[in-house]
């Protein structure tokens, strides 16, 4: 089941909706997330870094399991964590701190495997390349750095190398607001948005700036079309601009060079964007607390969800395992469900343990996949295929 999850900096919980039917699912309570601070760890549970008062020195990261609205695990890292990202199978959680450090945790044990100084200012966004070998981080000072995870754990190699990072791009003059990468691992392009009103396209393979596009307003979020023909840039003026990557740009139109159109709903500023897996539905979160689902092909709004009065600052489209559904329906068999409830991992560690745990640090504990997941996930491919074939036939008949 593909669901949209969204959170807000004001306490409105994490909203969860079925992307296709539009039905609202469970709402997970007491979450005031930071921008880019919501992650779904390996489809097993939700994690979010929390906004804290500036007075408190430690940060906080909360876990929710799919089936319960309450916070299940609380961890308190050494400093406030802003962006949070996890790899696809949910083995690691990576967070960016307000001092510019990046934290690397192992989920299953909660150990802090690595912490390193990545930036001079607070980290604002993080993402992993699609092959999960590179980590890209953006910071408040406009700096974007590309890290090889392989290198990060190679202490000797780090000392040998001139710079710990692969690339450092410093062309942005103000805070980096969002970044997104294309396909192709280390050969991909990345698109970054900044408060200096530009979006820049970089090449990871060549390590250089390919294009810089000026927008009429500050861009808060970017999303890349799966075909990498265009990217969508959600602006603070409420419009979602469409900028071309692959088309030859003709004369500059009313918005500026390379910008070919907008999606607009006269809303307040757009704060976050996400694409569904099929690459057709674009989900945008707005300053006014609503989440809009657009059809990127027709540029129409398909659906509007309402999260809170305050702004939305995170939107994700994730696949949610089906077992949790059944669990809610079978709540009566409490003993049964408790046994089946996926246990959440322990809280995240605060410091890197330098104690002699070398013996077991060699092995990485793999999270157990709940067995019910496999049983309940039905294979639909045959039905889907036959259905599509019949649809195509109808289509051809219609054409002829």
């Amino acid at each position: 089941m593909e669901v949209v999850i969204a959170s807000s900096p004001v306490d409105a919980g994490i909203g969860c909706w079925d992307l296709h039917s539009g039905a609202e699912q469970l709402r997970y309570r007491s979450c005031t997330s930071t921008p880019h601070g919501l992650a779904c760890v390996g489809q097993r549970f939700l994690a979010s870094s929390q906004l804290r008062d500036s007075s408190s020195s430690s940060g906080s990261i909360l876990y929710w399991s799919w089936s319960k609205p309450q916070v299940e695990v609380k961890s308190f890292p050494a400093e406030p964590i802003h962006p949070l990202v996890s790899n696809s199978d949910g083995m690691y959680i990576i967070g960016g701190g307000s001092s510019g450090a990046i934290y690397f945790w192992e989920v299953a044990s909660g150990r802090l495997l690595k912490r390193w100084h990545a930036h001079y200012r607070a980290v604002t966004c993080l993402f992993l390349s699609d092959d999960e070998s590179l980590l890209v981080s953006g910071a408040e000072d406009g700096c974007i750095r590309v890290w090889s995870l392989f290198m990060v754990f190679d202490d000797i190699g780090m000392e040998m190398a001139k710079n710990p990072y692969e690339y450092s791009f410093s062309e942005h003059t103000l805070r980096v607001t969002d970044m997104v990468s294309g396909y192709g691992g280390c050969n991909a392009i990345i698109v970054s948005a900044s408060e200096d009103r530009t979006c820049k396209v970089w090449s990871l393979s060549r390590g250089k700036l390919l294009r810089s596009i000026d927008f009429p307003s500050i861009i808060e979020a970017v999303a890349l079309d799966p075909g990498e023909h265009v990217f969508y840039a959600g602006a603070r003026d409420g419009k979602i601009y469409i900028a071309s990557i692959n088309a030859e740009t003709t004369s500059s139109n009313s918005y500026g060079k390379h910008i070919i159109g907008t999606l607009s709903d006269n809303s307040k500023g757009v704060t976050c964007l996400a694409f569904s897996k099929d690459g057709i539905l674009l989900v945008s979160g707005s300053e006014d607390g609503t989440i809009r689902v657009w059809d990127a092909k027709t540029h129409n709004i398909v659906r509007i969800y309402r999260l809170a009065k305050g702004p939305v600052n995170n939107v994700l489209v994730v696949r949610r395992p089906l077992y949790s559904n059944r669990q809610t329906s079978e709540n009566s068999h409490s003993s049964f469900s408790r046994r089946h409830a996926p246990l959440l991992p322990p809280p995240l560690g605060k410091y890197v343990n330098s104690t002699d745990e070398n013996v077991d640090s060699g092995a990485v504990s793999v999270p157990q996949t709940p067995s019910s997941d496999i049983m309940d996930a039905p294979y639909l491919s045959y039905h889907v295929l036959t259905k599509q074939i019949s649809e195509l036939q109808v289509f051809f008949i219609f054409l002829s």
Partner: protein
Amino acid sequence: MARSKPSSSKKQPKRGVDFKKIKRKIGRKLPPPKNATNTEIKSKAIILPEQSVASERAGLAVSKKGLTLKELLQQTSHHNAKVRRDALTGIRDLVLKYPAELTLHKLAIIEKLRERISDEDKVVRETLYQLLKLVIFPALKKDVPGSLISLMMAYIFNGMTHLATDIRLMAFKFFDLVVQHYPSSFFMYAEKVLQNYEDILRKNHIYLQDRSKLKNALVGLVRCLSLLPCNRRTVDPSYGKNTETQGSLHAYELEVPKEHTDFSSIIKRLEDILPILVNCFQDFIPLVHPMSSLDAQSFDCMLYLLRSIDLSVKFFLYGIDKHQTDFGVTKPTYNEKDMPVWGEIATPVFLRKFLEVFPLNQLHNTSGKDEDKFFILNIEITEIFLHSNEWIFTSAILMERFLEFIENLLSGKIRFNSRSGKALQEKHLTSLLPFIPRLVSLVANTWKSRLLQAFTMAFKDCKPESTLNLAFLSAIEEMLLPSKRQGILLLDASEPEILDHQITWIRELPVLLVRLGDTLSSLSKVILHLLLRLGQYAPMNSSLAWEYDIMQHTLGEFYSMCLDDGSILYGPFMKLPKDCQELSVCCLYYFSSLDSLLLRSLVYCCLCDNLEPSVLFRIIDVLHSAYKIGHLQLVDLISFFVTLVARWKVLPGRLYTHVENAKKISNRETFKAITGAVCSCLRQMGDDALIFQIVQRVILDEIPLNPPIDNLCGMLRLLVILDSRPTKLSEQSIIILSNSISEYLIDAASYIPENGDEVTDSNQISICQYYLVPCFFLFDRSDKLLNLVLDLMGSSIGEDNSSLACNHDTQHTLDLSSRIVAVVSILLYMHQDIKIRRRLSSCKGEITRILQKMRLQSSNEMGNTLEERHKIQFSFDRLKIAAGQLNCWDADELKIISLFE
């Protein structure tokens, strides 16, 4: 018949003689026989304008002497030197006159001319040189096939190995010319050319006598070597480079292989040449020591020799650096295996020996001119030293000498004596400055402080318009910030002395910026970029970051300054180009707490008409972002916004006169956009109630200043955006607001389209709505405000009535009548709005009072003309009808009103 007879009889006697004997006298000319053929030939002179051969060349290009190109080319190989020379000048004339000839016959021309490269006659060679230099190469600049060059090169090489030294040296000069115009040709022939250079330099003692020739050859060598790749340590601000405007990023790129040149052979040659150059230079040294002054020629030779050494050393360093670069950072231009790791054993030895000669002017020559020369040579040697520093282990004593020299140079203890010295010194200093950061990071502590001291002094003394500043700034950037390539700090800022210097530099930057004004925007851009980098990279809570924060006090002057008499002096910010303005605005973001003084000088800039709106919006954006990360106080930001809205000058101009006042309209549109931007910022700030309280307070401070209608409208919009229903306005502020709103409404009424004429100008309606809608929102939310405003409107009508007695100003009465009309049209307009109509119905008392006042006015004969009274009467009727529609008057009250009539 009878007649024939006599005739026959006459003939008869003659018949006897068959042939008459003719006697001829000797010596007498016979008459010509009758049947003689006239063999006489007659001829006439034909006058031709030209010689017969010349007629063929009509339409052909000829030189001044009437020779065609073909003839001229033939003549170039004439045995007489003079003819050859004339032929060359002829070609020159011809080509200058008919440029097409050259492009058509370039191959033929070059083919013939190249033979003259090794001409025995000096003058001919010289003429050829001039011909090639001034005419042929510039003309062929665009299309020169490689074949042409190779045609030339064959003969040039021939000349280079000629027995006659003159020809030999001249050949180098020719080669220099070719390289000058077609630099790529060097790499094609590099090996051979360098070999030839090597030969000629090896025998330098032969040519030592004729130094001007040697100098020419060396110029060529310097030029060739400067084409070799080297690490560019020069000042080149890499920022601001525009990214290629490629249409499609994923498109297939045709990768043109770069010209592959075999550097390994060049390296081998250079390895041979370098010792020879050093030897050659050392041959000159004896000339230096005697008291006799150094002549210009040998000085030049020495200079060029040093340059060549410098360039080859740089090239080797480049090779070594390339060898060490990591993968992917920069693609090596040649294969790694081609690159022998060079010069670890042999070469530095002689270089070290060479560097030993270093201070050349130990003898302290008396003449100033010579000192300058030595000075230049010393600088060149220093440069070589600094280049090679990275891989030669130098002795401490030598190091000391160099460091002392550099220190003296920086502090200006050594100076040029001649007039042009200043410029020269700057030029040389520019070449040395890029080395300072590395040097400082490597040398021992005592020298570190001495060098830094000298550097700081020199930087402070540097005039703002000097070209040196660029070099200083890049050196400072390198010493302040972690370098771009390595990401590590060169200097340890924890040492107090270094920190002191760093702080001095930082403090100097804004001063320099202000002193520069808008004279050198490129330099200002570099400074601003440095400031931005400093703000970005200064470690948090370090003394550098602290210093950056302090800088905002001096930076205020860069934006604007409020003088004692209240006038505003705009700083350089206003005049700089847009990219500099944007940079300086970005710098604001990184101050950890923005000072309200700086904000004030910023707001003066924003209020200036000359500021481009786009920059203004950037300022709003950046300040808002700075607030978001806690670099700006909420109260400061709000007062900045409100001041902006309250004081921004909207040029007065009625909208319907837009034909002539296009600019004024755009101005109002800009103001609307500013208000919109401010509103959206305010709404994003979070707690609406708190922000509303602050905004309300600031606005109430501004309102008594009687802002123009547009600004008041903007402020009301801010209030409306943040307010909710029912209103959060306090009692006191409602009272203050009602005062200004009633005036405001009467002003705004002039924009309400007349009901009578149907000319509904859409523009005018929209502006009218723009003005009135915020008021309607306020009325909708607060009944009390509406009551008060209506009250005030009513009393304003009456008030004039009372003052009429004492004030017989006709203007005033005119005001009164139009005021009444205005009030009525406002009320009618409000009446049209359904929501407000509901509200209006609850304040019938006020409306009745207004009606009464009007009644009174219309009946007041005194001072009112007939026309005015008619107007008032007409308005009264309209209002009465509207009031009747409100359904709020019961029968009694209606009667009372009718009683007035």
